[in-house]
């Protein structure tokens, strides 16, 4: 992809086909690269600026990974559903709701290559999926299928809320958690595979059974693409009872084929990278009948299968769950659809990440093939980021003073490291981002460095 044909604001082209109608928002001019994706944007007149015009224009929003984003056309579709319920809720509930949820489930089934729509449940978010699966594991302890001291293996870098759920259901019921110790930065998949293997061995030691494996498809902080298929295979050969993939960030940023991955349970959010409104996720069960999962919020569908149970958990606004087809329609307007978009985001985030580490004299946290639509970029050591409090402090300063929204991660230094890079920023790239967002971040850090700023 070349950076030759750059258009800045002063060159409004008369040709409607190529004019992307850029407007000045910051002091930087906006530049669009002429990739095939962008050409298709122009061709289809997808006005990215207006689809995301509700985003705060003063912010360099390079944190799609936390809360996701939703285009105006999908929000409009959602509003139509909300209105239909408000207009005549009984009629909507009795005559339209069930098939609308089914429509969403069918769309997800196709997207993730599930065998049957029964395998797909729609829930609020991955946090809810975790509660569903882990509560089920808890019952296995209560029913004495699992014994006190049986183990679970999960990554040290698993999402903190997920770890709490494991504590609330697995540990509390008598299980013991073994964390997979991975060093960071990571240099290869082999490191991860080896670390995981060691954890499984530890989990089996002293005649214990590994009952549960929680495997991230893409860890959150630090963000690393995990060789999930290989790890699932390993767990299968060790006869782990319950193999659960937390793929919160996966759908819309990496390829998702649940049959190929082969886990017992696989869950991903759709509001992060697949343009759904907040919030909606799917939970895939390899064998829904055998698993006998239940939604913890019990309603009148109890006993009819997790998909049905999840479809109604009391009166609520389910509209975010009903616009999955509309979000997919939005994605399909891009050349290459979901895959084309993921590829574009990946290429752009890598390009921007390499620009940043070059400007700062630091390094990426992983090789580029272990990045998705997010990348971890090392921050200059002189900023003195030592702990989580420092990271939050820096994040707030970046937000308030420099109008850059980006999460900061702090790693543990290894023994014998000289001048270690401890702090990393997790940059995201989604379709609404422009290069200026990252230039602003680059300049903010440079400014902090040259002013002698340290977190302490």
């Amino acid at each position: 992809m070349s950076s030759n044909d750059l258009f800045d604001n002063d060159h409004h082209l008369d040709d409607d086909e190529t004019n992307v109608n850029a407007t000045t928002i910051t002091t930087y001019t906006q530049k669009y690269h002429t990739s095939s994706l962008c050409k298709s944007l122009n061709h289809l007149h997808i006005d990215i600026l207006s689809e995301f015009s509700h985003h705060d224009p003063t912010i360099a929003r390079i944190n799609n990974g936390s809360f996701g984003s939703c285009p105006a056309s999908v929000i409009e579709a959602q509003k139509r559903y909300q209105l239909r319920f408000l207009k005549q809720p009984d009629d909507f509930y009795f005559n339209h709701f069930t098939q609308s949820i089914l429509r969403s489930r069918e769309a997800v089934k196709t997207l993730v290559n599930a065998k049957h729509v029964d395998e797909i449940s729609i829930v609020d978010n991955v946090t809810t999926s975790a509660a569903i699966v882990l509560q089920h594991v808890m019952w296995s302890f209560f029913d004495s299928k699992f014994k006190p001291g049986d183990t679970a293996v999960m990554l040290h870098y698993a999402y903190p809320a997920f770890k709490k759920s494991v504590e609330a259901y697995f540990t509390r019921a008598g299980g013991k958690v073994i964390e997979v110790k991975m060093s960071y930065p990571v240099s290869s998949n082999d490191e991860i595979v080896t670390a995981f293997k060691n954890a499984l061995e530890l989990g089996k030691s002293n005649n214990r059974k590994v009952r549960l494996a929680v495997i991230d498809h893409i860890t959150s902080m630090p963000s690393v693409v995990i060789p999930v298929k290989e790890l699932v295979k390993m767990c299968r050969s060790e006869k782990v009872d319950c193999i659960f993939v937390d793929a919160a960030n996966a759908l819309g940023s990496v390829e998702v084929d649940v049959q190929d991955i082969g886990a017992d349970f696989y869950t991903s959010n759709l509001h992060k990278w697949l343009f759904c409104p907040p919030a909606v996720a799917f939970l895939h069960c390899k064998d829904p009948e055998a698993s006998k999962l239940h939604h913890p919020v019990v309603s009148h569908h109890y006993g009819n299968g997790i998909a049905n149970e999840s479809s109604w958990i009391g009166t609520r606004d389910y509209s975010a769950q009903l616009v999955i087809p509309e979000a997919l329609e939005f994605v399909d307007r891009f050349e290459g659809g979901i895959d084309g978009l993921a590829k574009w985001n990946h290429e752009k985030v890598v390009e921007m990440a390499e620009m940043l580490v070059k400007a700062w004299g630091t390094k990426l946290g992983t090789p580029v093939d272990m990045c998705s639509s997010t990348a971890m970029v090392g921050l200059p050591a002189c900023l003195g980021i030592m702990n989580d409090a420092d990271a939050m402090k820096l994040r707030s300063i970046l937000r308030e003073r420099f109008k850059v929204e980006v999460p900061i991660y702090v790693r543990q230094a290894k023994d014998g490291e000289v001048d270690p890079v401890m702090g990393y920023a997790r940059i995201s790239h989604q379709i609404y981002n422009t290069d200026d967002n990252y230039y602003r971040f680059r300049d903010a850090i440079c400014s902090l460095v040259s002013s002698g700023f340290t977190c302490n």
Partner: protein
Amino acid sequence: MGEIRSHEDNNNTNNEDEDNNNNNHNHLSKKSRLLSFITQSQIKQEFAHHHTGVARINNGSFGSCPGSIIAAQKRWQLKFLQQPDDFFFNQLPAQILRSRTLIKDLINADDVSEVSIVDNATTAAAIVLQHVGWAFAEGRFNKGDAVVMLHCAFQAVKKSIEAYVTRAGGSVIVVHLPFPVNSVEEIVSEFRLGLAKGKLNGRKVRLAIIDHITSMPSVVIPVRELVKICREEGVNQVFVDAAHAVGSISVDVKDIGADFYVSNLHKWFFCPPSVAVLYCRKSSLSSDLHHPVVSHEYGNGLAIESAWIGTRDYSSQLLVPEVIDFVNRFEGGIHGIMQRNHDAVIEMAKMLAKSWGTILGSPPEMCPSMAMIGLPSCLGVLSDDDASNLRNHLRDQFRVEVPIHYQPLKDAEIGPRDEGCGFITGYARISHQVYNTIDDYIKFRDAVNQLVQDGFNCKMLVSRG
């Protein structure tokens, strides 16, 4: 005599504002006196999004939300979409706390730590019952210890009891309350009898779940008395399912004295779908309740846990201040609304009962903003299927939205009769909310009379698949 509004009634009074004098919190006292109350046409405008042409006399099922609250909700939704990180870190926690503080005053709780906001009563039931499930699993309760529920408990609550109590080894005592019912005393004595009977084999009763207003059939239950009886009978904890209460009857959780009390706010308190308040008495807080969807705040107390259960749209939980402003546009605020709804629904119920030759299912003082009206026996509502088929038929053919309840006779020879001397086994639950007009009930009245005239019987209807 209630104030039944018709479309033509333009109630543009200039009465002195009668402040909602049961609420002392700062928000209300800062408001200047209103010069005039909301007019009938303004009310119509606020609910203009409702389907015209449908007689919507079922506010009790899904509630309703005025246009100005929906607009306020959209503003909150936009704030999140604009800059979600800033909203999450800097705005959401304070706004949730603001809602909780206002609700605390509304229900007369002592301390804001006792007030959690959750999606709905269904979620609250899961929270309380999961806690019971853990008690069985961790040996604090013994296998066979009992939970008490009413026979007419809401279906989702019954299933929750099955999922968390029965599955964990607990037993269930079911107390039947009479319906139709003639007095509060009947409820009290039936409950006392049922509870005593259930305890006969010496079972320990760990939790009683009592409705404040039963759903179907809908009756106001004397919860304060029943809570007392539970305490006398050695029941450990009492959970009041008051899904319908806030906005339809007065709620004073301290006076009621239950350990746990939940009410929806989207049914009768004009919030958008959906939001509910779960009150947990401080002394009962040591019970260590948890939200079943576990997130970062696990272990920081139920209220804090409930304030973040993953990325979602929390906007419906942030509108309590706007709703209080809305209800204060009405004469007498929320109390005026409740009184007028009650009076109106009774007047309409009597009108229907007179026209059909049937009865009310309970005396007026046991009706909230809803009433149960007997249907003519000749319609032949003889099963739950008949009831839902009739409901669909009324919706499809007559554009009347009203839920129907099948009440089997206790005894084949004894039961309430209609004017034609047939046994009444079908009841309609009519609701009255501020947007209703007399025409809604006239439409229903005429629909049923038409069915009777046509010789209609539920046997003629086919169940939907």
